[in-house]
């Protein structure tokens, strides 16, 4: 990364504080913008100009950036956005962890703005995931949202020292002439991919726009032309999805209960599963790293268990409440996604009153569901 544009917000500042000094040592720069929108727009500008750029924020800032994210999706500019989630909504509980932004990350911007959404599960994962996120953003010319949360932002954890790998580094900016007849949005009919050209390249001159556009990047007034763009941008997520491995099941491949989680709750869920398995219960867990697009094979895994329970650190209505029933229950974030994606009657347990979710709590919830 060369450019990190940010605006101070808790708990994302722990990362930008560290980067402000660390970036200096590798020739990068942290730009403290005048506001969250400007930070996102600055990162989009840098990335458009060929630099490896990201913006880092937390919930309220993530909401403010949504219009810019839509622009990056529409104009197909690679961008990594890190959202260090905190208690919401509104100003909420800035210092408390929550996993409440998953659906905003997936569907936040207006219109159809397909983005890649990933989540980190521990400190070591934070290190490598940023590199993966940028590579995906550059390969597919799109926005990658990387979700962390307040518990990871303030945690410490030892992990094996990373061995330097040249592939981590950003490629030099291509300034070679573009071949005649170049079309800025020459969408591949199968994968939706396009060739990105960077300012400075002779013969590649064109104007990017957040308006609907055709293959020449001309403003499209025709509805069919817009449909073509929408379809190709959506196809890119499918193309990425074909490259994602099915996540491994923790425990046996089939059984009575499957606990599904994402992000920082991984350790707590797996420890709880280990405990109940030691008592002979047929319980397994599944951890999702890439949440949009979702890997193939997940539906099949869910079907191999009698019950599926999502455990996450955000709100889910409890059926114990008098007015709540199957028809009005609001599910947890991943609960909604899995039900829609897999057509499985996924149960969920969401908690916003504990920080972070402890293995003992997950174990209690599992035992309740088993009984």
């Amino acid at each position: 990364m060369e450019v990190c544009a940010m605006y101070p917000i808790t708990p994302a500042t722990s990362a930008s504080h560290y980067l402000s000094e660390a970036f200096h040592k590798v020739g990068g720069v942290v730009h403290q913008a005048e506001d969250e929108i400007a930070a996102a727009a600055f990162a989009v500008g840098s990335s458009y100009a060929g630099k490896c750029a990201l913006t880092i924020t937390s919930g309220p800032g993530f909401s403010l950036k949504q219009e810019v994210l839509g622009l990056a999706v529409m104009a197909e500019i690679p961008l990594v956005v890190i959202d260090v989630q905190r208690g919401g909504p509104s100003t909420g509980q800035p210092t408390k962890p929550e996993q409440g932004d998953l659906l905003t990350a997936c569907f936040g911007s207006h219109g159809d703005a397909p983005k890649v959404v990933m989540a980190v599960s521990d400190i070591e994962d934070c290190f490598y995931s940023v590199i993966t996120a940028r590579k995906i953003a550059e390969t597919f010319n799109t926005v990658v949202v990387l979700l962390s949360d307040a518990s990871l932002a303030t945690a410490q954890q030892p992990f094996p020292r990373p061995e330097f790998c040249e592939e981590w580094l950003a490629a030099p900016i291509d300034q070679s002439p573009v071949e005649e007849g170049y079309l800025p949005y020459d969408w591949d009919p199968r994968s939706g991919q396009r060739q990105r050209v960077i300012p400075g390249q002779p013969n590649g001159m064109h104007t990017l726009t957040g308006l609907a556009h055709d293959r020449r990047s001309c403003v499209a007034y025709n509805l069919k032309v817009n449909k073509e763009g929408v379809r190709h941008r959506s196809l890119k997520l499918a193309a990425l999805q074909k490259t994602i491995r099915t996540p491994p099941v923790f425990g046996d491949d089939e059984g009575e209960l499957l606990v599904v989680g994402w992000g920082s709750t991984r350790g707590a869920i797996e420890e709880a599963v280990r405990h109940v398995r030691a008592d002979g219960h047929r319980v397994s867990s599944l951890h999702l790293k890439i949440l949009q697009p979702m890997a193939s094979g997940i539906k099949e895994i869910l079907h191999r268990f009698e019950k599926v329970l999502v455990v996450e650190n955000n709100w889910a209505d409890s059926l114990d409440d008098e007015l709540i029933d199957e028809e009005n229950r609001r599910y947890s974030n991943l609960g909604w996604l899995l039900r829609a994606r897999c057509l499985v009657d996924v149960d969920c347990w969401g908690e916003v009153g504990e920080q972070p979710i402890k293995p003992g709590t997950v174990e209690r919830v599992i035992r309740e569901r088993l009984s």
Partner: protein
Amino acid sequence: MSTRTTEFLRRSGEHDHPLEDYVGRIPRWCTGCGDNAVLAAVQKVCREEQLPPEKLVFVSGIGCSSRFPHYMGSYGFHGLHGRALPIAEGIKMRRPDLHVFVNTGDGDCCSIGAAHWVHATRYNMNMTVMMHDNNIYGLTKNQASPTSPIGTRSNTTPRGSVLPPFDPLQATLGMSNLSFVAQAADWIPELLFQIIHEAFKHRGFSFIRILQRCPEFQANRWEPCIHDPGKLLILTHENGVQLSPALAKVYKNCEQHDPADLVDARRIVGTSEQIPVGIIYRNSDVPCYEDLTAPDRLFTPELVKQGLEAELDKFTIRPRD
């Protein structure tokens, strides 16, 4: 005259880039729209400076004026309403080789993007910013803008706007780290060209407010000034713009104003009954943000590796023998 010894040299007046190299798509602006004049002036500046089209990036927001990049034969970024400046800053930050221009309007700059404008002035990054001020929202079809004169009848102010107009020049002259402010009028192409040219040559954040005609929704706004050139105060100086003899016959209301004089600039903008046209303020000594934050050496992959290894070493605990 060329000889065997000099034939490989370019002759003076020989242009590698004719005007056509800076021409993009056909403008869709209304007939008589002042944006057309700005486009022509900018294309002439590019030819004058022989700027490689691939090294030009025109960034804009949303509005009539923000269609500008599409009509240039260069790179362009037609972004979001109000956000042209932060996008332009991001482009310029680590690409000093690119010439960055911004086209924004009175709604884009003075209303939805006003916060970015204040801070863009403070950052003082090397770019040329043209604020096309037609005193009205045109693309959204006739709503009063912050710079609309009091009493402007529009679709949102059918009984006339009630607030006095916002003055972009007074605002900029109050901003910190200011380095270049000018005012131009679209109907005086010679001065428009000179002012944009001077703004381009200035190293820093060059802000030009361009008084612009909107024949559709503000048809008579500038008519008094066009018919009575004396209503304009032309600021001339050896370090500013100069009137050609032909133009001097028309614009007789001139004042010598040294662009280095901030106090006089504030007096002209704050008290003058007339509308100033020319370079109002220039300070070439204000450092640019991209220079202040530039890496102190060229970071080769080897240097990046060293930096990263040193950073990882800070946290590494190695087992004892």
